[in-house]
């Protein structure tokens, strides 16, 4: 069913990228996601192609889904679908965004994307740097995943990392476990991390001397990392308020698609 769906996307010429949970699994930064999230190029022609592909896949509208128009897509709405398979007890949950927050244009992201060969066919997948931005959500559990994506990135650039790479890495560590792993695996990041804050500088020195951190220092670092992600989580909450408010208006006006209706 899933391979067939992705084949329909390609047959209809849809421009799309795999994002979120399944993308983090491909990069090795997560172990599970129950749905499929796509970033779809937001032009009217591409959205029409997407609707055709969804129709060919016998997709149905799911909850709280507005009409898939360029206008609503540009205002950051998500569009939710299910695709059923008689041989599967669970439907496929498909969540589509066209203008996700914190990232530049689809075309820019497409240039940075990577294609993974999988059992579902070739999957164009958003690049790690864009994926990290997409994961800066209001959910605390996304921040360790960001750290694992950073570690995956460093594993790829390895000894060829530039100052720019190291600065990006230093800016995108939000959890103690991944911080320690980073210092252990890529000690060259320590000098860049150290200039971020005196506490981090002390931790880098302690790690370099002992290969370990005291429990007191770990507690302080946990608080520091929590505080580091707090503004990002708050910004994400604020971002979605306007979208949710408009969704409420659409629902009150009877303008949402009816759940279960075929696309």
């Amino acid at each position: 069913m899933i391979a067939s769906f992705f084949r329909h996307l390609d047959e209809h010429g849809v421009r799309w990228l795999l994002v979120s949970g399944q993308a983090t699994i491909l990069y090795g930064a997560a172990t599970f996601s129950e749905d499929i999230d796509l970033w779809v190029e937001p032009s009217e022609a591409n959205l029409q192609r997407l609707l055709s592909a969804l129709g060919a896949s016998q997709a149905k509208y799911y909850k709280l889904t507005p009409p898939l128009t360029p206008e609503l897509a540009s205002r950051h709405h998500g569009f939710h679908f299910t695709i059923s398979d008689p041989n599967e007890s669970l439907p496929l949950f498909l969540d589509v965004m066209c203008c996700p927050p914190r990232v530049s244009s689809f075309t820019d992201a497409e240039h940075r994307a990577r294609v993974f060969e999988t059992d579902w066919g070739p999957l164009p997948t958003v690049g790690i740097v864009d994926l990290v931005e997409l994961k800066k959500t209001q959910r605390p559990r996304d921040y360790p995943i960001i750290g694992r994506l950073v570690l995956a990135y460093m594993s790829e650039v390895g000894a060829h990392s530039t100052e720019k790479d190291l600065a990006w890495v230093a800016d995108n560590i939000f959890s103690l476990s991944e911080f320690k792993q980073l210092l252990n695996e890529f000690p060259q990041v320590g000098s860049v991390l150290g200039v971020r804050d005196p506490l981090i500088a002390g931790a880098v020195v302690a790690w370099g001397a002992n290969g370990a951190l005291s429990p007191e220092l770990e507690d302080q670092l946990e608080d520091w990392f929590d505080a580091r992600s707090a503004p990002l989580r708050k910004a994400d909450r604020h971002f979605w308020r306007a979208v949710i408010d408009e969704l409420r208006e659409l629902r009150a006006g009877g303008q949402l698609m009816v759940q279960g209706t075929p696309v």
Partner: protein
Amino acid sequence: MRSTWDRAPAFWQGADRDPLEQQTMLSPFKELEWVELSPAERLARAWALRKRLTNAVDAHDRKLFPAP
């Protein structure tokens, strides 16, 4: 050459995971084998695990439409 990233990330121990994730922390995801898989193999195994979730619909809805 494989880095330590490809060996034993601490997060696979699952101590910091919520109940939903712990429900999915089933073999082979606790094992080193996970990191040695190709991306395609990881995707296939992770998706297969989905069938073992008893509350996939709830899990999906809770993430997508969190309670205010």
